[in-house]
């Protein structure tokens, strides 16, 4: 034991030497910089690497993407493309009835918008419900509680492609589920070829894959609720349902809000596991916005990079609105807490 601590101390001392040497080297230019620019200048100095990376990998592509959306033609280099103004946006919005994709010039885009909207509504509701129930169950005094928490969190660790493949093997015509159904004496169902079943599978699989993460957030919220509130309610003889509505839910509201916004943003971006699972089919019943953008931009034989860029700008706008909503609600909660 003593040997171990002296070894650790020796390693610490050995490591401290180069660090202190490095600190002495950068101390001189840093002090010079501070004298020149003041404290704000120092902030800029320390933020610069991050801002540079953000600029190169986020801001610059965003600007380029917007420029793309104003161009046409088959070339990929921006300089080789023709400026067409808002033509790609006009094409996307050329509809006689936005609720009927078939009345739109770019019917696939509006089909994807409709599918994504329905998916977001159903998936977010289901995700929050299942995550809340999971968190409430995992918060109880269960035997092997840590094991069960790990079980529910495990799918979150899987790659979306793996998730898609696993469920495809289960749900395909000659898959595991149909084998079990057949063994029980029932007719197999073509889960991934029937429109409604495929859509339900897309929702179910995405919930299965991510519910552990959101359940964990809610579990943290549940554990932060003071126990004495529950004890007081128990002493008053309050019914469990009333305890849930009057104590648990109000105090869990901030966590629920985080889960709601994160789920919303993620469900708008749904792509990978569903793409592997259904390929957007049957027909176009599980074609979502991100897949539409990917296909029209990169994969389709009818490729159109300008149209893909315009569609991604529109989708980005929706995501920005959702993010601002999250920031606004978070700020409102902070203000409430301070009061």
């Amino acid at each position: 034991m003593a040997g171990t601590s002296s070894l650790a101390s020796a390693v610490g001392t050995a490591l401290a030497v180069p660090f202190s040497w490095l600190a002495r080297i950068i101390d001189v230019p840093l002090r010079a910089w501070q004298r020149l620019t003041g404290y704000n200048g120092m902030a800029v100095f320390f933020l610069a690497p991050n801002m540079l990376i953000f600029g190169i990998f986020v801001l610059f592509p965003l600007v380029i993407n917007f420029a793309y959306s104003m161009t046409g033609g088959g070339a990929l280099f921006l300089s080789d493309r023709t400026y067409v103004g808002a033509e790609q946006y006009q094409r996307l919005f050329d509809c006689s009835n936005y609720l009927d994709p078939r009345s739109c010039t770019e019917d696939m885009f509006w089909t994807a918008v409709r599918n994504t909207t329905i998916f977001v509504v159903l998936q977010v509701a289901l995700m929050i419900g299942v995550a809340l129930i999971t968190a409430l169950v995992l918060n109880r005094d269960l035997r092997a509680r840590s094991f069960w928490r790990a079980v529910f969190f495990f799918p979150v660790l899987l790659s979306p492609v793996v998730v898609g493949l696993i469920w495809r093997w289960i749900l395909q015509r000659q898959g595991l589920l149909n084998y079990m159904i057949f063994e029980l004496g029932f007719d197999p169902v073509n889960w991934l070829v029937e429109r409604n079943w495929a859509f339900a599978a897309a929702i179910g699989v995405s919930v299965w894959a991510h519910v552990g993460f959101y359940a964990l957030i809610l579990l943290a919220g549940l554990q932060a609720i003071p126990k004495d509130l529950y004890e007081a309610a128990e002493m008053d003889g309050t019914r469990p349902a009333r305890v849930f509505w009057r104590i648990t839910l109000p105090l869990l509201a901030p966590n629920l809000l985080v889960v709601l916004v994160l789920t919303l943003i993620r469900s708008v971006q749904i792509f990978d596991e569903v793409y592997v699972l259904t390929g957007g089919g049957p027909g176009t019943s599980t074609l979502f916005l991100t897949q539409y953008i990917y296909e029209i931009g990169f994969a389709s034989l009818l490729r159109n990079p300008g149209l893909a860029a315009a569609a991604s700008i529109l989708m980005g706008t929706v995501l920005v609105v959702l993010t601002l909503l999250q920031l606004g609600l978070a700020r409102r909660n902070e203000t409430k807490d301070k009061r």
Partner: protein
Amino acid sequence: MKFSKGIMLALATGLMSTSALAGDVRVMWYSDGVEGEVIKDLLDRFMKDNPGINVVLDNVAYKVIQEQLPIELEAGRGPDIARVTNIKELAGHWLDLTPHLSNVDYWQENFGAHFDWMRPDGSSAIPGFMTQITLTGGFANKTLFEQAGVDMPDDKATWDDWVEAAGKVQDSQQLNAAIAIDRSGHRVSGPNISYGANYIGADRLPAPIDAGTKAFAEKLVAWTENGRMNKETWVSASGTTYRAGAEDFINAQLAYYYSGSWQVANLSTKIGDAFDWVATGSPCGTDACSGLPGGAALVAIKYTKNPEEVAKVMDYLAQEDIVREFTERTLFLPGHKGVLSKPIDFKTDDPNVKAALEAFVKAAGEVAPNASALPAWKWGTAYYGALVTRISQVMAGELKLDEAYARMDEDIKAKVAEASK
């Protein structure tokens, strides 16, 4: 000072290790069957004879060739050599090997018949050569037909005859479906032409969807609705996504499968002696019994930094004895005049294979002029994309056939308009 020098040396070493060395030739290759192993063997022998040239073989999925390579090429990057099937549309990215080849006349003589498939209209460039000539066509599970006691239709049988016979097999053997056709606009184009379709307008631009295409599209939809055609292959994906029906045929779940000659080695390898199968050529329509010719080409990419080395590799792989060996081992139909002029000894013990290849050679004589014209036509891909996207929507119950035809015309027009900007 020493410290700085050390850092500089380490950085330089690191950078050198990630950059391509002069003399490196990268080949992007996909495989339908065993050709990946064969080309590796041939390239290893080339490197032994040419120690100054290091050939790196990147075996990739077909999807990478279809979806990622075009993007790389548009960005002015990519491998030095690639094996591709979308030959005409990407022709602007191929290198003209003419100034670098050791014997241009040899190339013209033996591969010249297909150069127009792989170069821009009006060009006289030599971008590469066809590694194989393919033809779309059908395969029947002979064992299933025999077990069902159903006679296989003859050479002049129509699509309806084949579906009817395969349907009897389906009912008798309790199969999930009677037939499958790969989910691909290319695959249904031979049958469309057999029913009188013509894709190429007088101005060489795409013609509107005509009665021939409509006739076969209606049949496809009807067969899907009545359970004769495997619904999963076409309906279980969206857009222009490619889906092969081979797995169901290999698993004896289909009586009849329409794909192409490139499947022969794949079927032989995976089916083995599980059941007997035969190639049938293409069933007849009202106008012809045509498949669609095509193939894969090995092309040099014009963005290469090592054109001389690339040409050396191409010259080696294009030699008659090498093409012959590649052909005999891969069980492909060659695109080399000299190899075709002599008997080919395909290296296989599978009796199904030789018969199948003979059937495809015979079917090559049945190719309709409209089908022969398609590989050298630059708008083929747009047409195929519109066909597969919209027909599968009809099969899924999202569109009526008439709506689908209108959409196909719009999709193709939009693609042409976008390309001309």
